């Protein structure tokens, strides 16, 4: 099946890549999963057999071309296989976020009209059964972990194992059909449909073709010279495009091994045992790791602590230079090696990052000192900028050109354009086909020439060609006096302080900026323990005068740093308050990927915003909260509102955080 833009010899679908890998790497490990305390291993040939059995089983259950197969669960090889098996029978896999509550799940299941749902365990099965009360198109539920499901009605519920067994038994009957369907797949057939987390409104189904996935995987694998001996740890949600690209796209393209942790809680141990060479984590994971290292070092003995700080300080100067291939004095190099032997090496090992050759972070801005910490350890941590609609990659940082404040140069095959209002547009082979059942949104996002609006405002640095992102384009506004308002720019600076977990800055169309702050319970709680400050709840700690003082000093530091940039100096925070509850995805205040939902927060806490702008010193408020089991409750508090010192424009500023 010749395609006009398909490079010569490139397999046209993920199942075709699988067949190639079986021929090329047959006995090399393709998947590993820790089960019963032991790493179980599947070679490419074994994985292909399992997938084949699943595909036959799906045919036996009556799967048609174009059916949607929802997959819900934590990262496990069998669930990855079920996605590839679905592709093989001409169906379209739709991975869903496993932590979404029943109603969110029901919306997506209804929107895609799934006939089959593959669940990881009883929890997911229960949610799907609940959704079935209103949805009637789900015909079969398949599950992986049988625990607790023994006494369920099995007329339309099947163990994945049994489906595979049936598939193996029915191989003779369906082999020809399966082969025919597989042969029909080409660059234009849909590879996967992924739902965006929906910062605004309902989630949208992004349709990605084999062309999108395969060409993007090819280009990005070549960019970082990934090879079949690389190892990744698959621990990020399967519904997220990144995991699909890393654990299926790039893994199938290069033939590297995907390792699945034993459970979500054992991730850190599993990371150490596997020692991945290619590692992706959102900034939050790197942040939490750093926080836990620092807290544990505080508890270490005096000698160890001094050694740690001494060599880390040295590594912070020398490490990044070594990574970037810049010249370093012989003595400094020697000292770095000594530090590596005594502190850095063991620390990297404890973090499970001894073997990381390429590490990426994306999704949110990462704090410069967090970024520098990992680079100081000699971990090649880079940033990339991407979107579901782009099959992840828009820009990424090449080796030796890594900086915390840019997101890199355009990925191979990607064209960039900055619109007049500052919004970033891109065009690439990875650009999505359409939003499922939503032509209006498709048309408003992607124009006839294939340019896609990112929704982010940014600019390209003239000397380096690197892209810098300022904020969401729709969030960038004007203050009352006409100066630029970029809330995320300020929020990120605030969030770089370990004590601040989340910040929301307001000020569009107003005279000055104000902010809501969430403290980080781990960091602040630890500080409270050390200073003998007793607290019973998050709310109590958040309202403690000493905590407010600390936060105020952070806000003022940020103001000094913001004032240094003449374009954005209007964004200094004049008044702030520390919220009485943590912003939570269950309450709709954050997306599942933990991005702030500005509109909803503005509506929900309107009384507090009024208080911030009315000059009051305290404000009483009541907030509805949703507990983990779905019950609702109310919490009330009287919050203190503080004024923060601001700087005049172009004040000479030197900020410790940067």
């Amino acid at each position, binding site marked *: 099946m010749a395609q006009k833009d398909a490079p010569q010899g490139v397999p046209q679908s993920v199942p075709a890549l699988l067949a190639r890998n079986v021929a090329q790497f047959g006995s090399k490990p393709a998947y590993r999963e820790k*089960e*019963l*305390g*032991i790493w179980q291993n599947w070679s490419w040939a074994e994985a292909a057999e399992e997938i084949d059995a699943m595909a036959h089983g799906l045919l036996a259950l009556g799967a048609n071309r174009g059916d949607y197969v929802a997959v819900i669960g934590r990262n496990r090889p069998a669930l990855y296989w079920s996605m590839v098996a679905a592709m093989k029978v001409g169906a379209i896999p739709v991975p869903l976020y496993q932590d979404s509550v029943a109603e969110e799940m029901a919306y997506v299941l209804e929107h895609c009209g799934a006939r089959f749902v593959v669940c990881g365990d009883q929890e997911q099965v229960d949610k799907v059964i609940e959704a079935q009360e209103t949805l009637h198109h789900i015909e079969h539920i398949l599950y992986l972990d049988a*625990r*607790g499901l*023994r*006494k369920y009605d099995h007329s339309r519920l099947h163990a994945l194992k049994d489906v595979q067994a049936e598939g193996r038994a029915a191989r003779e009957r369906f082999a020809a059909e399966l082969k025919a369907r597989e042969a029909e797949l080409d660059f234009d057939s849909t590879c996967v449909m992924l739902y965006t987390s929906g910062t605004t409104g309902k989630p949208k189904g992004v349709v990605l073709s084999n062309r999108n996935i395969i060409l993007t995987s090819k280009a990005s694998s070549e960019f970082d010279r990934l090879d079949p001996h690389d190892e990744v740890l698959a621990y990020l949600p399967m519904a997220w495009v990144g995991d699909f690209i890393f654990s299926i796209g790039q893994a199938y393209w290069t033939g590297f091994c995907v390792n699945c942790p*034993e*459970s979500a*809680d*054992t991730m850190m*141990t599993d990371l150490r045992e596997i020692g991945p060479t290619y590692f992706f984590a959102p900034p939050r994971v790197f942040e939490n790791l750093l926080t836990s290292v620092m807290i544990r070092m505080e508890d270490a003995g005096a000698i160890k602590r001094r050694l740690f700080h001494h060599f880390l300080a040295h590594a912070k100067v020398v490490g990044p230079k070594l990574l970037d291939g810049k010249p370093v004095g012989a003595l400094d190099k020697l000292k770095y090696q000594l530090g590596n032997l005594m502190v850095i090496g063991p620390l990297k090992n404890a973090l499970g990052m001894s073997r990381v050759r390429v590490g990426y972070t994306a999704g949110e801005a990462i704090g410069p000192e967090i970024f520098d910490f990992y680079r100081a350890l000699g971990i090649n941590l880079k940033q990339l900028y991407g979107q579901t609609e782009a099959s992840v990659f828009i820009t990424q940082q090449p080796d030796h050109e890594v900086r915390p404040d840019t997101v890199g140069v355009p990925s191979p095959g990607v064209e960039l354009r900055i619109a007049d209002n500052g919004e970033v547009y891109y065009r690439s082979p990875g650009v999505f086909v359409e939003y499922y059942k939503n032509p209006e949104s498709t048309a408003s996002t992607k124009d006839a020439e294939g340019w896609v609006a990112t929704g982010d405002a940014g600019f390209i640095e003239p000397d380096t060609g690197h892209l810098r992102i300022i904020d969401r384009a729709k969030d960038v506004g004007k203050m009352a006096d006409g100066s630029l308002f970029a809330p995320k720019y300020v929020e990120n600076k605030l969030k770089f302080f370990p004590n601040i977990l989340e910040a929301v800055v307001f000020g569009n169309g107003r005279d000055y900026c104000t902010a809501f702050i969430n403290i980080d319970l781990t960091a602040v709680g630890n500080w409270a323990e050390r200073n003998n400050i007793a607290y019973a709840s998050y709310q109590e700690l958040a309202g403690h005068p000493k905590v407010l003082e600390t936060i105020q000093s952070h806000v003022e530091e940020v103001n000094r740093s913001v004032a240094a940039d003449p374009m954005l100096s209007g964004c200094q925070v004049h008044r702030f308050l520390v919220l009485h509850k943590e912003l939570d995805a269950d309450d709709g205040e954050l997306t599942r990927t933990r991005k702030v939902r500005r509109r909803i927060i503005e509506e929900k806490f309107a009384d507090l915003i009024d208080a911030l702008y009315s000059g009051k010193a305290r404000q009483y408020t009541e907030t509805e909260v949703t507990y*983990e089991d779905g019950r609702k409750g109310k919490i009330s508090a009287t919050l203190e509102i503080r004024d923060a010192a601001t700087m005049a424009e172009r004040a000479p500023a030197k900020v410790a955080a940067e």
Partner: protein
Amino acid sequence: MLDASQDGYTTADGRRIGGVVMEMRNITLRFGGVVAIKDISFDIREGEIRAIIGPNGAGKSSMLNVISGFYNPQEGEVIYRGQKRPPMKPYQVARQGIARTFQNIALFEGMTVLDNVMTGRLNHMSASIFDQAFWWGKAQREEVENRKKAEEIIDFLEIQHIRKTPVGRLPYGLKKRVELARALVSEPSILLLDEPMAGMNVEEKEDMSRFVLDVNDEYGTTIVLIEHDMGVVMDLSDRVVVMDYGKKIGDGTPDEVRRNQEVIDAYLGVAHD
């Protein structure tokens, strides 16, 4: 006594409960002059969740200790699988497939979770001391087999992340779970749980309830539990024995027991004449 036939019955949620596996006949237990249990009879059926409830000092734990062989009653008999059980040591009872957890956690604090769970396999080890010392032949085979079983239970109770953590460092709720793991790993046919949810918060209780139901469901284990939280008892158990001052004052399904006037009086604290 319930009117259920000798062959057992089917519960509302469709679980099949088998015949009588253990019967307590006219048990009386005295400590000197104190009568802890007074002429109590009830039975336990294969595969059911049987609760023993009652106010403090009602004799619940003593009853559990009679079942586990820790106390030998002065009067009455224990019929196990159709045969009268002679006075036994607890380890002999354990060999018959009866395992228990304790009200006050009784784990080896300095040992890891895995090692604690492995001790539950003691009854499944028969290799000689020499084989054990040199980890040779039978000892090696047994250890592999025992570790496999231990890992299955660790997976079942979702404690993989603390496998190598010393028990002393764990929070209370997890310790309780480790204790359950140690009891389960001996593959008991009857599992005795002495206040499995005492001192737990709501979430831990929910988790534990789920595990108790899962154990019963997955392994068909008969479960006898003592518990104070009435909500938990009424939700979990198939039949309930109610004790007060060493006497049995009620026996039946949770609904029957809830309507029983004597039980209501005991719990609401009516004065005893």
